[in-house]
């Protein structure tokens, strides 16, 4: 109705009415004829005008199209131009307006401009390129953004309102050219080493977890390699971020070492997160674009239970659960509303899961880095009874003693180890024969042999082979049938949450040779058995299976780095081009080291506000550029 108070709109309403009535009368003359009275009489008048004055009506319609035309006459309004939402943010993004003054200390910089500023941006970039005499590379992209203007009418005739219009924008990515940096350093420091930089080998590392990073660190210290690190997730450090339990924050201190490494090797070490090797860039392309490739992508495929009913709801693998509480993106909340949980497996993942469920309720994880929503879910857990099932005996566990002791030390939980009298006696008699590690672990198990009691219980059971997962009418797990090797009988253990952690399978990248065991085919300890001019190495869990803690990975890494350094000692080939050009061509939205540091900072700031170490983000859409 408000349209009628505006003169232009009133005329267009009348014109439309005339046209409509004339049209309807042409089809159905009986609906609108001269005998009608009231409103229908008005319609008849309109129809008659339409018939008699049709050329004039047509001309008026035509005029209206030009008068209004969706455009606003700027002389009639005071215009307040709203700032459009910035499509990218970050400390190294600059938005050029007519007043901007750019100062920057970053190694790569994004400059954005829109509308009338496009010209200034391009002039600015050309000036910069001249100034740095080819030491800068610019990558120019354009886009269309939508901006909104607020319209304030200057006379009563016009309506206040908004106007949206498309506007051209330009985005320039400026970064230092590698080559020129080496020229500068050659001039600065005329040593043999700097000459060698022209022919330094370029290595691609697949995976930024501890294995890749420790090897990278050892290699950078020993050689003049240039290294590109590729990571599938949006953020680096693999299991250090997504695997180490949130109550073991000290273990994550090794990140400081990696931080140092990236900061002090900016000219030859690059990070590309959010790049999937196999999809964005194939393994073959890596070997073609690098002098050498190091596989360090871990082994992230969980071995399945392979028993009937394993697809029931609320049955999940240990690594899924670990990923969930550690903030891996796109993992659904498991239901923790039942009374009891069963964890199958006798490794550290099983212990971590049990401990985090146990600690969830008592608030001791409040200041850890578990994402807020997942922590809240964990704190509401109703689980009072955890059973950790082992398929083999108490002598075969692969727990580490530190984690096991932590479970026994939990104040509100009563934890105990169930073992038969015979088992206990055999272990006690064999105890002196064991090596130190096994001896101390067995002593701990024997110390806590018995039955748990109290409102919250954690019970370790052995010699139970899972046979079938039983589910209720909704398809959710309600119990697990296990074969008890002590009694040779089948037992039913009720549970509302089932976590299994019975090992991993190595995922083999397309193009990487595979041996009969389903592992990467290795020539020796670290060299992959592959034909072709590019040597390929593997380290960490993807090479040897998921065994050992950080110290094993670290020692192995030093060894592998030494081997690579030895192989490339007399390298005098050409430096390979690297895959960054490919990524750019394919518009892969990778995340660089500087970008990650920005995310890192944001996470820490957000965590500080609620007294946490950091608040891990679980979506990264706003950070991808």
């Amino acid at each position, binding site marked *: 109705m408000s349209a009628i108070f505006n003169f232009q709109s009133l005329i267009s309403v009348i014109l439309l009415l005339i046209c409509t009535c004339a049209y309807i009368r042409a089809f159905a003359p009986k609906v609108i004829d001269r005998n009608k009275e009231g409103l229908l009489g008005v319609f008849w008048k309109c129809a008659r005008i339409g018939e008699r004055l049709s050329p004039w009506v047509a001309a008026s319609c035509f005029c209206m199209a030009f008068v209004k035309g969706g455009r606003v006459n700027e002389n009639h309004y005071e215009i307040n131009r709203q700032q459009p939402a910035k499509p990218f943010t970050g400390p190294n993004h600059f938005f050029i307006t007519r007043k901007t003054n750019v100062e920057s200390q970053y190694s790569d910089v994004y400059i954005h401009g829109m509308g009338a500023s496009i010209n200034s941006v391009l002039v600015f970039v050309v000036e910069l390129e001249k100034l740095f005499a080819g030491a800068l590379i610019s990558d120019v992209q354009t886009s269309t953004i939508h901006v909104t203007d607020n319209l304030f009418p200057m006379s009563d005739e016009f309506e206040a309102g908004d106007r949206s219009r498309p506007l051209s924008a330009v985005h320039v990515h400026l970064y230092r050219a590698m080559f020129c940096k080496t020229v500068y350093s050659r001039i600065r420091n005329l040593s043999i080493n700097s000459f060698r930089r022209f022919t330094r080998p370029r290595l691609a590392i697949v995976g930024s977890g501890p294995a890749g990073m420790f090897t990278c660190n050892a290699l950078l*210290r020993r050689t003049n390699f240039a290294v590109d690190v590729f990571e599938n997730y949006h953020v680096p450090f693999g299991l250090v971020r997504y695997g180490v339990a949130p109550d073991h924050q000290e273990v994550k201190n090794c990140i400081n070492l990696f931080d140092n490494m990236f900061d002090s090797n900016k000219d030859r070490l690059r990070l590309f997160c959010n790049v999937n090797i196999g999809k964005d860039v194939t393994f073959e392309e890596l070997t073609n674009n690098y002098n050498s490739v190091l596989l360090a992508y871990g082994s992230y495929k969980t071995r399945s239970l392979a028993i009937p009913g394993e697809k029931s709801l609320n049955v999940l693998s240990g690594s899924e659960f670990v990923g969930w509480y550690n903030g891996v993106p796109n993992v659904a909340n498991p239901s923790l509303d039942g009374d009891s949980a069963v964890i199958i497996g006798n490794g550290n993942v099983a212990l971590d899961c049990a401990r985090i469920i146990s600690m969830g309720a008592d608030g001791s994880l409040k200041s850890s880095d578990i994402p807020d929503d997942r922590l809240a879910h964990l704190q509401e857990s109703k689980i009072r009874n955890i059973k950790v099932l082992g398929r083999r005996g108490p002598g075969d566990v692969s727990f580490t003693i530190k984690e096991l002791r932590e479970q026994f030390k939990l104040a509100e939980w009563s934890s105990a180890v169930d073992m038969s009298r015979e088992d206990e006696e055999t272990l006690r008699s064999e105890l002196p024969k064991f090596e130190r590690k096994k001896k101390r672990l067995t002593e701990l198990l024997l110390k806590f042999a018995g039955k748990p009691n109290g409102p919250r219980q954690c019970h370790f059971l052995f010699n139970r082979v899972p046979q079938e997962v039983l589910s209720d009418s909704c398809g959710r797990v309600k119990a697990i049938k296990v074969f008890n090797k002590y009694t040779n009988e089948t037992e039913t253990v009720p549970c509302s949450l089932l976590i299994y952690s019975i090992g991993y399978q190595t995922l083999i990248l397309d193009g990487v040779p595979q041996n009969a065991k389903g592992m990467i085919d290795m020539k020796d300890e670290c060299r992959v058995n592959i034909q072709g001019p590019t040597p390929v190495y593997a380290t960490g869990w993807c090479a040897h299976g998921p065994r050992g803690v*950080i110290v094993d990975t670290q020692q192995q890494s030093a060894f592998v780095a030494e081997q690579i350094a030895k192989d490339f000692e007399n390298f005098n080939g050409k430096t390979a081009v690297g895959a960054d050009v490919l990524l750019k061509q394919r518009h892969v939205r990778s995340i660089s080291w500087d970008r990650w540091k920005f995310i890192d900072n944001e996470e820490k700031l957000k965590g500080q506000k609620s007294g946490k170490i950091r608040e891990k983000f679980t979506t990264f859409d706003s950070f991808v550029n």
Partner: protein
Amino acid sequence: MRFVRTTPQIKLFSNLDTKNVKFLNGERKFEARGKVGQTLLDVVVEHDLDLDGFGACEGTLACCTCHVILRKSHYEREDKLNPAGEEELDLLDMAPELNDYSRLGCQIKITNKDAEVIEVVVPSITRDARNS
């Protein structure tokens, strides 16, 4: 830019409260001066010795990457004055090439009673013995 401090600061009469620490890592040898009261990890960090990943958890008793093997006399003296706690023993259990005289470098402080040259072995794998 990484600054490597190569020359230890030598002050007159300061020899009394500094000791020479020798780290034997496979075929490599590192020597640095450490002050009394510093831990072996502190010495490695301060002199930026090229021991890969040594002290990954920065001395918070969460890993065993600073595992060192002491000389017998040194170990016995430490064992009397500053025996390994439960936490340290638990971590040492996981250390590769564990030895009767193994300790964590972050727990061993240099004292006045130490010899003028402290020698410790930092185990490393020279050949990966694990079967793949």
